[in-house]
Structures are given as structure tokens and as C-alpha cells.
């Protein structure tokens, strides 16, 4: 039975709309994954050299033993954030005459097929084979492998268990996250105990007593059965789905936007779209993280002013780029509704401009503390702010007319390639290159300030001629709307 489930799972993967995307994207994805894989592998292979550099006065094996548990601690944190529950897919089988046990076994087993379970092995095994096996013999090396595997599986099922429980009760997640945070703080901030010592105490003894490796192994088994029985007890639809228990959703108004009439209404709807759906919300939060971009570049004298243009553009316009690249896919699920209701497309576009302008303005004000690094930085930010709301918004909307890929708003953003197509790849080129095409010639003749001025003026000209661009975008849309709507209807 489990093999039948597994066969269906493979079919689901290969036949999903998400997988069936163009070859180009698959190649790019493949390269990215390979790159990440090779990076981790390189760290794994050179772990001995890195540990030598980090703890020059310590025994290599001791240092290695010290970091293992710390790794697993942070591994658990990342898992809680990112690991997906393998759940919803069982829905079509629940009513069929299939034994509960085989179901639950399948669910519990597939949970082990997660990329997260790969990393510890790539990271630690090269060291185990290179150094530990060499120093202490193959039996000890084997015990290390078993211990690491045990901890990986334990972490895997612990993370899933916490996630499952927190589906029923949101507090579980908060409490476990707080406990983890507290453990980390106790160690690294208050120095109440040291995870390195604990880790060393265990793995150090492993060298003299390889049989201890059974301990993590047993822990992993216990955690697996814990999961198994919990799932078996709770195999009901409402408890399996990834939805949190719903609280009362109230209607809200955004009075500030009301003054813009129907354009304001549309923008208010879009703000609600962003705040109430998982994926656009994480796009917005990612944008907030970009506010720290300046700290990387401004604290390092290595980067000159031409870099600041880049930094300024990203900090004030990351939302336009990150959110705008998927326009109008965000509204794919109700695009037909928009097309038949009494919404002027010009208004629809104006609402986008309004939204971009609001978010960019907020972002610009958030970057004002960078004045600490000199007023020139802030000036560059302002120039790029003008550029963003003038030029980049228009570029993004031009490409939005060429995007007909549906996005399911309820799915998370991490590792979600839905809606990614050639448009997004093409879009990044003009966004990144055009400011430099204008700026570099001036910069080459040491006229950086004139270069900035020209950038600012271009931005202002685009803002002043917005109505012209609106008209052009509308004409363009009128030709492409059937294709766009058709694409959005394809689930």
C-alpha cells in the first residue's frame, strides 16, 4: 500500500502545474540547487580546515564534537520555520477502505524525505571519514554516523510533531519557539551552560564508548512512534489541513485611501490582499529585511558610489521589484471578477501606482537613519526613490501585461516557484541595468553628481508623464487581456 501511495506521490509531483514549467526555469532551478549543494559539500569537505582556523588552540576532534549539537539546535529552528507538513495529500484516500495504519505509516515515512535531512550528512560525514575514521578507527566513525543520523531523524520528527500540534493550538508553536530561544540565550548570552560542552561530553564519550550512539538512535525511534501515534489519533480532515484555527476576521477601512475615490478603494483592496495572504505578506516582510542592505555596503569602504545607486534602488524599491514582478498574478483568482465589474482599467493601474508610491515612500523614510553615514547617502536614496516611483513602476507594469501565470495566494513563499516564468527573468535586466546605463557614462568622466541629477530628472519626467504611460499600458492591456485572463483561469 505504501508503495502505491508513493507512486501517486511521484505522479503528483511530475504532473503538477508547478513542475510542468518551461525547461529554462528547470535548468536555472537545477543549477541553483546544485550550487547550494556544492557549497554545503565544500563546507563539509573543508570543515577540518575551518575548525582549525576557528579554534586554533583546540584539538580538532574536540572542536568538531562541540559544534554538532549546536548545529542541530539551529537545524530545529530552521525546520520549525521552513519544513512543510506532508499532510493535505491524503485527503482523497481518507474515505476509502484503506487501513489507518498504512496511511499513518506512509505519512510518517514520507516526512523523512525532506531536504533538511540531507544537510547534516553532507556537512559532517566528510569530516567523520577524513579525521575521525583516521584517528579512532572505523567503529567509532560508524558510531558517529549512527548518532548523526539518529539526531537528524529525531529533529525531523520533533519539528513535525511541534508543527502538527501547533496546527491545533497556535500557542504550542509560540511556546516551543520561546523555549528554543531561551535555550540559545542561556548558552550564548547568559552563559548558564554551554551547548558546546554538552555536545562534547556526548560525542567525546562516543570515541571511547561507541555503543553510546544507540542513544540518539533510540531517541529517534521514540520520536517516530510519538508522531505515528499522534497522527493516528488525529487523522481527521480539519486537523490535518494546514489552516490555523480561525479567529474572528473583522472588516477594516483605510480612511487615508478613501480620499482617492475608486482608485483608493482598489489600492485598499490590494493592501488587504498583501496583509491577509501568506505569500504576498512574506514578500513584504522580506522587503523590510532589505532595509538592512545599507549596513552591508556602507560599513565597508570597499564599495563606491556606483554601488550606492544599487543599494538605494533596492532599499526604496524592493517592494516594487519583488511584489511587482508577479503582477497581476496576485489577483489571478478573481481576475474575471475584475474584468466584468465596473472598474476602469486606467483606475486599476492608477491604484498600482498609488500602492507602489505609498510603500516606496514609507521605505524611503525608513532609510533616513542612514544619514549617519553622511547626507550624500540619503540623497542617493532620494534620487533612487524618484527613479523607483517614476521609471521602475512603469517597467514593472509593462511586464505585468506579459505575465499570465496563476498564483495561489495561500501557499507560502519559501521554495515556491509558482508564477515564476520568463517574465520575471527578463524583468530583472531592465530594472538593474537602466539606471547604470544612464549613470555610468557620467561617472566615467568623474561627473557623478550630474549622473545623479540626470537619474533624478528622468524619474521626475516619468512621474509627470504618468498619464501618457497609463494610456500606453491600457492599450497594451486591451490587446493582451484575453491571454492574461485565460492563463489565470488555468489552475
Amino acid at each position, binding site marked *: 500500500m505504501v508503495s502505491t501511495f508513493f507512486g501517486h506521490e511521484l505522479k503528483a509531483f511530475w504532473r503538477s502545474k508547478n513542475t510542468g514549467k518551461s525547461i529554462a526555469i528547470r535548468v536555472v532551478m537545477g543549477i541553483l540547487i546544485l550550487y547550494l549543494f556544492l557549497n554545503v559539500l565544500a563546507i563539509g569537505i573543508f570543515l577540518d580546515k575551518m575548525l582549525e582556523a576557528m579554534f586554533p588552540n583546540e584539538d580538532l576532534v574536540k572542536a568538531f564534537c562541540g559544534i554538532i549539537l549546536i548545529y542541530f539546535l539551529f537545524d530545529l529552528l530552521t525546520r520549525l520555520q521552513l519544513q512543510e507538513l506532508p499532510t493535505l495529500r491524503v485527503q482523497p484516500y481518507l474515505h476509502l477502505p484503506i487501513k489507518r495504519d498504512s496511511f499513518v505509516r506512509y505519512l510518517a515515512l514520507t516526512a523523512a524525505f525532506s531536504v533538511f535531512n540531507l544537510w547534516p550528512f553532507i556537512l559532517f560525514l566528510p569530516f567523520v571519514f577524513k579525521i575521525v575514521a583516521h584517528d579512532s578507527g572505523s567503529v567509532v566513525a560508524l558510531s558517529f554516523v549512527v548518532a548523526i543520523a539518529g539526531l537528524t531523524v529525531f529533529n525531523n520528527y520533533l519539528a513535525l510533531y511541534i508543527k502538527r500540534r501547533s496546527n491545533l493550538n497556535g500557542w504550542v508553536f509560540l511556546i516551543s519557539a520561546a523555549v528554543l530561544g531561551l535555550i540559545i540565550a542561556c548558552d550564548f548570552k547568559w552563559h548558564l551552560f554551554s551547548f558546546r560542552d554538552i555536545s562534547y561530553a556526548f560525542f567525546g564519550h562516543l570515541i571511547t564508548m561507541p555503543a553510546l550512539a544507540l542513544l540518539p538512535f533510540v531517541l529517534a525511534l521514540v520520536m517516530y512512534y510519538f508522531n505515528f501515534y499522534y497522527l493516528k489519533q488525529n487523522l481527521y480532515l480539519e486537523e490535518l489541513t494546514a489552516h490555523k484555527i480561525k479567529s474572528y476576521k473583522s*472588516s477594516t477601512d483605510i480612511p487615508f485611501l478613501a480620499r482617492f475615490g*475608486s482608485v483608493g478603494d482598489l489600492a485598499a483592496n490590494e493592501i488587504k490582499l498583501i496583509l491577509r495572504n501568506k505569500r504576498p505578506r512574506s514578500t513584504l516582510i522580506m522587503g523590510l529585511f532589505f532595509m538592512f542592505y545599507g549596513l552591508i555596503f556602507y560599513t565597508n569602504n570597499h564599495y563606491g558610489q556606483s554601488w550606492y545607486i544599487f543599494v538605494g534602488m533596492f532599499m526604496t524599491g524592493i517592494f516594487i521589484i519583488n511584489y511587482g514582478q508577479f503582477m497581476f498574478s496576485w489577483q489571478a483568482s478573481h481576475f*474575471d*471578477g475584475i*474584468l466584468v465589474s465596473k472598474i476602469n482599467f486606467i483606475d486599476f493601474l492608477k491604484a498600482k501606482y498609488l500602492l507602489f508610491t505609498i510603500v516606496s515612500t514609507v521605505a524611503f523614510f525608513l532609510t533616513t537613519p542612514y544619514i549617519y553615514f553622511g547626507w550624500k547617502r540619503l540623497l542617493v536614496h532620494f534620487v533612487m526613490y524618484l527613479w523607483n516611483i517614476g521609471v521602475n513602476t512603469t517597467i514593472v507594469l509593462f511586464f505585468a501585461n506579459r505575465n499570465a501565470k496563476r498564483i495561489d495566494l495561500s501557499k507560502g513563499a519559501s521554495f515556491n516557484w509558482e508564477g515564476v516564468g520568463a517574465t520575471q527573468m527578463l524583468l530583472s535586466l531592465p530594472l538593474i541595468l537602466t539606471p547604470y546605463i544612464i549613470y555610468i557614462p557620467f561617472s566615467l568622466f568623474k561627473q557623478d553628481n550630474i549622473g545623479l541629477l540626470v537619474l533624478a530628472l528622468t524619474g521626475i519626467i516619468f512621474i509627470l508623464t504618468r498619464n501618457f504611460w497609463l494610456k500606453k499600458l491600457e492599450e497594451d492591456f486591451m490587446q493582451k487581456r*484575453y491571454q492574461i485572463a485565460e492563463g489565470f483561469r488555468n489552475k
Partner: protein
Amino acid sequence: MIEIKNLKKIYNGITVVDVPHLVINKGESVGLVGNNGAGKTTLFRMILDLIRPETGEVLSNGEVVAGHENWKTYTASYLDEGFLIDYLTPEEYLYFIGGLHQQSKAMIDEALSNLGDFFNEEILKKGKYIRDLSKGNQCKVGVASCLLQNPQLLMLDEPFANIDPSTQFRLKNMLKDANKNKGITNIVSSHDLNHITDICDRILLMEKGVIIKDIATSSSTLKELEDYFGVGQRIEEPVPFVLKIDEEENH
């Protein structure tokens, strides 16, 4: 109200809608029936300028629908959940739709208070986003948003499919009232032959994209339709079972 000329839609070499000529007059109440894949939804979508026909055109009040937006001011429609903005609460959505027609909140509240029976206390002030409502309740929101717009033309695709029996009767009465007392032109599709013959003066029967019957409803219409769909067949004659991919649901 609506005039269709030489309208054709072809998917992968198969003609899914082929309507040489059709006129729907102002104040008519038209029912569209036909098995799955007959082309009802495709026809609706072309009338609403959501898909591009291969040939022909649809005129609404004498103006071509494609490329014009005037018809949107007097046409209200609900085909499927894709018409609803699902991350809004029903209130927010209805205020938004009303707002598009320059209605104040007070006016909308007033209009909604008349729909209390229809909503059956399951829609408003429930603290749910539209996406968390059941299909039937989503349908109620869609129908309510249509009525809110005070349209001259109302188009509903299988409105009875997901709603409970009480709501079906209320909806029937509302549609009759809209047509008889307010003069709204209705175009409604349904698989429920009783309902459709009850509310419509004129029935269009579609088969494989073609309107094969255009009947003014009379006492014999239901019988006629039942005969067509095979309900009246006796058990000795087995109904041929044809497995057909459902075009409408497969988009």
C-alpha cells in the same frame, strides 16, 4: 438587449460554441440548459468579454461588447467563485462593489437589509473571509453583489447548484421579482429543470455548442425538456452512459 451574431469558439479544433444568431430582448427571462460541456459557461464568458471568440460578435444595447466598457455599468454577473475577491470579508466586498456604482455605505446597508432572509444570517457579521465560506454561501455573496448593482442585465451560471433548498426558493422568488417588477433581463443557466422552467419565459437548450431548441415556456415545456434529457425514459431502455470530460470544470 443582447444580440449575438455568428459567434464561434473553437478549442483545439473542437467547436465548443456556435451561435449563428440570437437576440435576447429587454425584460426577457432566459434560461440556458444543457449537459456538461454543452458550452453554456463559454457562451456566458463571451457575452461578458472574458474570452475572445474565433468569429462573430456580441452586442449589448447595440454596442459591441469587446473593447467597450459601457455594458459593465448595467450588467451584473456571477459565474463562479473566480468573481469574488476571496480575502475580503463579505461586507468589505459588497461595499467595494457598491462603491464602484457610486453607492454610499448607508445605501448599501439598506439594500443588504432586504437580503436578510436570503443570507439566512450566514453571511454578514460572521467574521469570516469569503474564502472561508462554503461554496453555497460564496454563491449567496456573488448573487447579492449582483443585485446590489441594480443591473438591467443579470447573468448567473448555475446559481442553484450549491445552495440549500430554502435559499433556492428564495432565489427563485428574487429572480422572478427582479424580472417582473424591476424589468431586469435575466440570463440564468441551470441543471435543475423544475427551477428553470419555473422562472424563465424562454428556454434555450444547448447541445455541443449549438442552441438546438428555443422554447417559449408553457405547461408542456418541462415535459419536453425531461424527454430530451432522458428522465422520462423507461427502465427497459438503458440510458447510454457516455463518459465525457467536463469542459466547464476543467478550465
